[in-house]
């Protein structure tokens, strides 16, 4: 579809907006509806749209497979890492109270980091699934 100028221009405008919205959903998740899972899916949708218009080859150049795969693992490690940090801090697994001097701040940081981990993993897995389906039967990719 990359010969369609309207689609091309529109995509270039929409993709950053989608990514921004994903970050909004991510970080506003404390106060309103949203959170890591939704944000991860929305962020992945931006790349799916890009791939639909500009093709898989160019998307791979923007977002190589190894990055996506690292994301899928890194999110889980971040999540578990927060848990381990709270254990080293002397509390139970995922007891965020010990992450800062003020337990209330600790809870805040903790949930932000854990949700960030969720977002990174969900994003990675979603794009991986899309890449696999889109590349089926195509030897050149």
């Amino acid at each position, binding site marked *: 579809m990359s010969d369609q100028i309207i689609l091309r221009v529109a995509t270039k405008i929409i993709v950053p907006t989608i990514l921004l919205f994903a970050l909004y959903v991510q970080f506003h998740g404390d106060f309103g509806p949203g959170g890591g899972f939704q944000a991860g899916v929305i962020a992945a949708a931006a790349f799916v749209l890009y791939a639909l218009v500009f093709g898989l080859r160019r998307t791979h150049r923007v977002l190589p497979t190894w990055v996506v795969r690292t994301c899928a*693992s*890194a999110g889980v490690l971040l999540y578990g890492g927060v848990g381990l940090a709270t*254990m080293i801090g002397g509390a*139970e*697994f995922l007891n965020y109270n010990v992450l800062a001097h003020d337990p209330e701040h600790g809870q805040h940081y903790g949930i932000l980091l854990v949700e960030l981990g969720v977002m990174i993993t969900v994003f990675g897995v979603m794009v991986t699934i899309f890449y696999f389906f889109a590349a089926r039967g195509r030897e050149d990719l």
Partner: protein
Amino acid sequence: MINHLPILQVIVPLMAAPVAALVRKRGVAWFITVLATWASLAIAVLLLLDVRDGGTIRYALGGWAAPWGIEYRVDTVSAYVLVIVAGIGAIVTPYALLSVRREIGVKQAPLFYSALLLCLCGLLGITITGDVFNLFVFLEISSISAYALIAMGPDRRALHAAYKYLIMGSIGATFIVIGIGMMYMMTGTLNMADLARLLPSVGGRTVTVAFAFLAVGISLKLALFPLHQWLPDAYAYAPSTVTAFLASTATKVAFYVLLRVVFSVFGVVFAFETMSLHWALLPLAIVAVLFASLTAVYQGNVKRLLAYSSVAQIGYMILGVSLATVTGLTAGLLHLFNHAVIKGALFLAMGAVMYRVGSVRIEAMQGLAKRMPWTMAAFVAGGFSLIGVPLTVGFVSKWYLVLGAIENDMWLVAFFVLVGSLLAVAYIWKVAEAAYFKDYIGDLDVREAPLGLLVPMWALVVANFYFGVDANLTVGVARQAAELLLGVGP
């Protein structure tokens, strides 16, 4: 760190899984897997020792006390199952190195190990958690990774088998979550201990229906006859390591879930007196033993034969539960451990045959005992144990099962257990006859399996005889667990 053991039990494999997926070299991924599984086993053993001395261990996740937060709860029953699952994991992973090199592609191998670790994490999580919804989440983690693992099988039919398991497994999981939802609706809690406290006072039709949904859903995961359709193909076409691992752990953990839900959540009185669960389980268990054993006799693929035998063995375990006495439940729990070591040894032997010969059909095994004496000897030794020859673990569990049946004056049930054992003789003999009394006709370059495969296999065979001769430890733990479940123990 010692008071964090319950969470470490789950977190160690969970954290090792993404690391294994990230590395490029399959040897490194394998090494991480071995480290993680052995660490899990060490944790499980420490937990069992702790529980036997000091009673139930409780761990509140995130510092939120139960019933508001998720609670991990280790008692004798869960610690016993944890040791079995982690132990099989620790024995199977060293075996995986060579077997995976033969059966799984270079690029897929790190992902394979990652999925294996996730599956282990899920199974351990199901066992350790004291929260029914958390249990469901772990059930999904273990099932989804199991589907992926089965689909990686060397045969193309593995895909179909995994798909069938996916559909059946998802139906089972849906039933379970519907049951959990109904319990939550009636009581407003998801904590098992809290549910057990509140359920008797609410009662009513919703609770009855919740019980029915849970029983059917878990039976699907457990492969209780006639819901076992997914199991034979899944076991037959999965990679050898996966078959050995899943056959010794997945259905066992589902059995544990059944015990937890029936005895710890709903309670003996509701399950067996109000709902008459034993009249549903007892006939199905007996039919499972007879029908599955009979089907096993007619199989040409030995892995499939053993898979049908697994369905029959699940029948024995359920038979123990349906007696609802200490002896019966002890027999069921004993068979949980004993069947894990029996089937583990048998499937690892088949994995070695697959490694050298490339097929596990009976025709491919003709005269193989001359070429692979140690492997076939392990198979026959495991087979003896499956039949229940004295001095093996199979004898110990059948002894208690028959004892339990006779205690209840169910002579017919005891008779069917013995008929099942005779059928086991028939299907094991079929393989043994081909291996020992036929002439070898296969390739000339087939040799004994390498030590990397023989050592884990024989470790399980030795366990079969060791715990068959000295059954004090297993019987002691199983009896303590049974008394705890029935609420009659100290």
